[in-house]
């Protein structure tokens, strides 16, 4: 057992981090906010870097890596709030032509959970393909065929949404097992993004607490503040262990139940992202409540990610079933 990053994995992480730091700075994000969340040129660069083709075999033009690597990449994308249906496009690369090289932007809708509630599709305007997961299978729908109404003010400024009245049957591209697998794999990648959010919000808050002075000293010197940050760091590291374990378990199911590892990762990383984003707002004080300080973007994106591939309540109930099965 060696539950640490390999040198290659560290290099992969550093590579993606420096790319994202360069392309998705807060200034760049503000520009995307004005002109639309998905910039096709940037999407192409993400594809070129292998974000979508990462897990495809080299014989199919991919990088031939596994989920343990993919979650690292998605944590970096989460750190920098890279917008767009990244997870769907990666999941469907190799199955929908053009997804791997970024020519085709694939979005999706996961309807495997409890029935009911409005049909809300992210980034619909920009999608070339839409995939729907249902408990009985996977279908592909032409996004342009939908009767959809844009929601003028989306919660996350980088995740525009449409309200769709009804979905057509679509063209079947997978069975029930495929749907369950894609949902599981998607959950792991989203958990990676949530880990990145938990990490970055902790770092932004800590950095601010070190510099900001009140009563003649840095606020990070007050236990009331530094203990918030210690808790944020602890949640982040718990999330890291859970997310890395989910990646490693998807790659090698003999070490445990992949479904259980993914539910664990999604729950723990989701809670870390949510609480750390809130802590980031709180530690920034009044400024944390402004549009200018990016804390709110993280909180809003977390809410988007908490609502895909199984909600908190769904995963918590699944975990309970696993415990009961062992009891």
């Amino acid at each position: 057992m060696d539950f640490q990053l390999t040198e290659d994995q560290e290099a992969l992480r550093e590579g993606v981090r420096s790319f994202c730091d360069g392309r998705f700075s807060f200034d760049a994000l503000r520009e995307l906010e004005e002109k639309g969340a998905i910039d096709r040129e940037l999407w192409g660069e993400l594809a070129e870097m292998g974000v979508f083709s990462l897990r495809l075999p080299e014989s199919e033009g991919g990088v031939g890596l596994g989920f343990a690597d993919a979650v690292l990449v998605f944590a970096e994308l989460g750190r920098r709030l890279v917008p767009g249906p990244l997870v769907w496009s990666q999941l469907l690369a190799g199955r929908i032509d053009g997804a791997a090289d970024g020519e085709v932007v694939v979005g999706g809708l996961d309807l495997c959970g409890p029935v009911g509630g409005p049909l809300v599709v992210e980034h619909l305007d920009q999608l070339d393909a839409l995939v729907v997961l249902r408990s009985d299978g996977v279908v592909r729908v032409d996004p342009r065929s939908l009767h959809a109404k844009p929601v003028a003010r989306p919660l996350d400024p980088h995740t525009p949404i449409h309200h769709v009245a009804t979905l057509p049957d679509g063209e079947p591209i997978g069975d029930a097992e495929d749907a369950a697998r894609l949902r599981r794999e998607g959950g792991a990648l989203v958990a990676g993004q949530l880990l990145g959010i938990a990490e970055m919000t902790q770092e932004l808050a800590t950095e601010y607490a070190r510099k900001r002075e009140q009563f003649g000293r840095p606020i990070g010197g007050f236990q009331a503040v530094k203990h918030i940050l210690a808790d944020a760091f602890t949640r982040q590291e718990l999330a890291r262990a859970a997310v890395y374990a989910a990646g490693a378990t998807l790659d090698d199911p003999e070490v445990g139940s992949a479904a259980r590892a993914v539910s664990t990762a999604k729950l723990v990383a989701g809670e870390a992202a949510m609480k750390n984003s809130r802590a980031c707002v709180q530690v920034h004080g009044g400024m944390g409540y402004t549009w200018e300080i990016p804390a709110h973007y993280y909180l809003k994106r977390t809410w988007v990610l908490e609502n895909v591939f199984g909600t908190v309540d769904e995963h918590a109930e699944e975990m309970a079933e696993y415990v009961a099965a062992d009891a």
Partner: protein
Amino acid sequence: MDLRYSESDEKFRAGLRAWLRDAVPAHGDPPIGADWAERREYDTAWQRKLYDAGYAGINWPREFGGRDASLTEQLVYYEEVARARAPYVGVNFVGLLHGGPTLMAEGSPEQKERHIAPIIRGEQVWCQGFSEPGAGSDLAALSTRAELDGDVYVVSGHKIWTSFAQVADYCELLVRTDPNAPKHRGITWLAMPMDLPGIEIRPLPTLLGSGEFSEVFLENVRVPVECRVGAENDGWRITNVTLSFERGTAFASDMYQLQQSLRDLTALAGRLTRDDVKAWEDRALRREVGHLAAELDAIWAMVKYTVSEAGKTGVPGATGSCIKLYYSELKQRLGELSMRLIGRAALGRDDVGDLPSGEIVHSALQSLSLTIAAGSSQIQRNIISERILGLPREPR
């Protein structure tokens, strides 16, 4: 990144599991109540069995009679002893986790000879004389005095939270030898025999009503100079060699055991009835169990991550503080959920009807100590925010 135990780890597991399968039931149940001599006998006899089977001192070097197991074998060890519900380390705790390792690192050849082999064989029991009424989290503020008189230290003072003092042979004792030096620089580490005149032990009942804690009053106790470990006034450094052991994998079995507690709770909810349906049908309860299960799985993954990190760097990372912080609060939440599940049966500390309230209430109350002992949660948060996040330090 690889979560798979190696073939040799699995071989180690198979051997240990087979041994525990027979040895644990053969050793019987632990004594109940305050018969400390009986408790010592039970715990040390188990230690001797571990020793004879080659499983004592799992992380101790071979030259001191230990197993010198790899870090992953240690994890396997903690998993298996938890799974088998093997006896707890009990009265051997201080010797195996503090006293012994300190002597290995800092003791003279004679001191090693006198203590280490008897500790690992379960023949010598140690207690800890660190904390004082005025020196808790601020341990270096301790005021127990030791004055040199020829070839003895004359020691007077008041120690507290000393576990199993009644049955200990030796005490790892911190004393102030230089009252004029800055507080960290005037402390000395003594291996004090507990049969010296002038030592008075008064049990200090815990909120459980149990008496494994004592206060130890020292009045002109004459401790031979040869009992000093390391140099005079170098005791703080020596102490920090041992304190890091307490935050490593010491709680690993306990953490693994929590998963069993959660399964027990789930099984219990499956047979309890509320409003004519099983308690387990309650969705709110299931969700709470689900969250706890995820956190427990995650914390176990974090133990593996930290152990792998230590294997790579050679030193336990500061994230040990994160594990301790999270685990101790998690156990308290699990305790409270279990008490809620059994309803008014939780008003009894013995089993009520066919409900295991005795164990549930005991475990919930006992868990209150976890966020205080071995560095309180507040101290852990200071450590994390200062050593890892680089925030301004508290006064020392």
